[in-house]
């Protein structure tokens, strides 16, 4: 390239691969300074919500202590933490059982969601008929179906997985359908002039460009997974966090502390699952600027 052709445009870029004048300019780069900035940002995003949670728990503890609230009605966070820890031999296996249901259910939801989305996208007649049906299916109260699902598939692992999938596949499907429909028409035309076939279009353009939508749907789905598994366990199960909570409610005297402890455990597990999906998302799309 001649020196003449190399104007400010090229020179500005030669300074670094990061875009110089974009909102992404402060994206952490590979430099140590960048890594420190990234760490600082992470601290800034994590600390404020933790402070809020801590403040709420402190206020709760204060009210319960000062007003001498009956612990069977509303135990304080301190008591909840202690009782749950003391009961860890019981809650630990329950976590394992429910996690298995939630994770396997999510796996089924992803399979079902992707199959629906790809069929809706691929065949025009299906798009007309299947999509409204799937949307309508979401108006059915799935909780009300839970007893039936148990009748159909017994009391084992399968009905729990089915229920989790029923709760969770919809956002995945909708996200992916939207993602597949949103691929850049210019890029599609470009690949057509390169004589790409349908499969190549799907693999090289449509799936990668649908991934962000897919993960948006998956992140919504994943927040339902534990709740759906617990609803399934309420209806009929021998073990799991749902059973654990039912047992604590039926105990005499009622163990409100353990019920609320289980609620906190479920919240933490859901957050963990969400974080794992976020991690997978980052690994699946290495081309995206780091958050």
């Amino acid at each position, binding site marked *: 390239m001649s020196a003449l052709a190399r104007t400010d445009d090229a020179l500005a870029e030669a300074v670094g691969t990061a*875009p110089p004048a974009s909102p992404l300019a402060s994206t952490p780069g590979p430099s140590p300074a960048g890594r420190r900035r990234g760490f600082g940002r992470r601290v800034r995003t994590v600390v404020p919500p933790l402070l809020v949670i801590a403040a709420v728990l402190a206020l709760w503890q204060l009210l319960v202590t000062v007003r001498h609230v009956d612990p069977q009605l509303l135990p304080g966070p301190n008591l909840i933490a202690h009782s749950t820890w003391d009961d860890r031999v019981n809650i630990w296996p329950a976590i394992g059982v429910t996690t298995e249901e939630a994770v396997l259910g999510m796996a089924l939801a992803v399979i079902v969601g992707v199959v629906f989305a790809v069929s809706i996208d691929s065949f025009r007649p299906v798009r007309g008929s299947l999509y409204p049906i799937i949307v309508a299916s979401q108006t059915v109260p799935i909780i009300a179906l839970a007893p039936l699902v148990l009748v159909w598939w017994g009391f084992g692992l399968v009905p729990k997985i089915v229920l989790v999938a029923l709760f969770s596949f919809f956002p995945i499907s909708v996200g992916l359908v939207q993602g597949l429909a949103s691929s850049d028409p210019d890029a599609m035309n470009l690949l*057509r002039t390169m004589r790409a076939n349908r499969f190549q279009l799907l693999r090289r353009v449509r799936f990668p460009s649908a991934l962000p939508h897919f993960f948006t749907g998956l992140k919504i789905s994943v927040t339902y997974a534990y709740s759906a598994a617990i609803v399934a366990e309420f209806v009929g199960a021998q073990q799991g966090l749902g059973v654990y909570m039912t047992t604590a409610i039926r105990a005499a005297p009622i163990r409100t502390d353990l019920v609320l402890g289980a609620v906190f455990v479920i919240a933490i597990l859901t957050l963990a699952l969400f974080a794992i999906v976020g991690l997978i998302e980052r690994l699946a799309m290495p081309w995206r600027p780091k958050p």
Partner: protein
Amino acid sequence: MTDHRPNLELRGVAKRFSGNDGDVVAVDGVDLVARDGEFVSLIGPSGCGKSTLFNIAAGLEEVSGGHVLINGEELRDRLGASAYMPQHDALLDWRRVIDNVGLSLELQGVRRDEARRRALPLLQRFGLGEFTRAWPWQLSGGMRQRVAFLRTVIADRPLLLLDEPFGALDGITRADLQQWLNQVWSEVGATVLLVTHDISEAVFLSDRIYVMSPRPGRITAIIDVDLPRPRTAAQKEDARFLAVEQRLRHELNAAINAWGEFAGRQP
């Protein structure tokens, strides 16, 4: 370099689209020739059907009438007979620069490392050597267009179709890229059909310019640009350059006005 063999030839090409209020004639009776190694531009106001004509040449759309010949043959399926650069760069975000350039090779079944091996010297020769591993979002608009153009060149087709490649760029970057394109083109020696709405760009790059009038799109003038090559930015100040520019501007205004009078007579 030029052996006068027509690389792309449009004969009486017409395109109608059926709409709600009957058929719309987008282009009508278009004759256009781009011979081997020539740089030919198509210029006209927006909505004159130049993009339609362009998509026809690329094989993305069928003609309603007339003939399209590529290397003297009327192909039933023109897709892949030429290399196409769309208006927006259409770089795939999920491919590094080098893999965007090698895309067409991979689609033909070339392995990725082999495609990279062939893309690398091209990137290095034309000033993108340090960006091979970058993701598209890390590039400026001008750099993205360079990558998109090299992606078009690597397919090694005798005919390149460029649809307003610099339309979205600022003036300074655009002038820079025109010069860059000029250089790359003189080295690869392909036939180019460029669609543009920029008078100076058309004169600076072309051997011949076709002027189109809108609704229906027709060729109203053909201007031969008889300026010496290789061309430099300094030539833009030249009296001969300015004279061609002036003539082109005149023809373009005539094309627009003719349509204005025609439209003005409509009830």
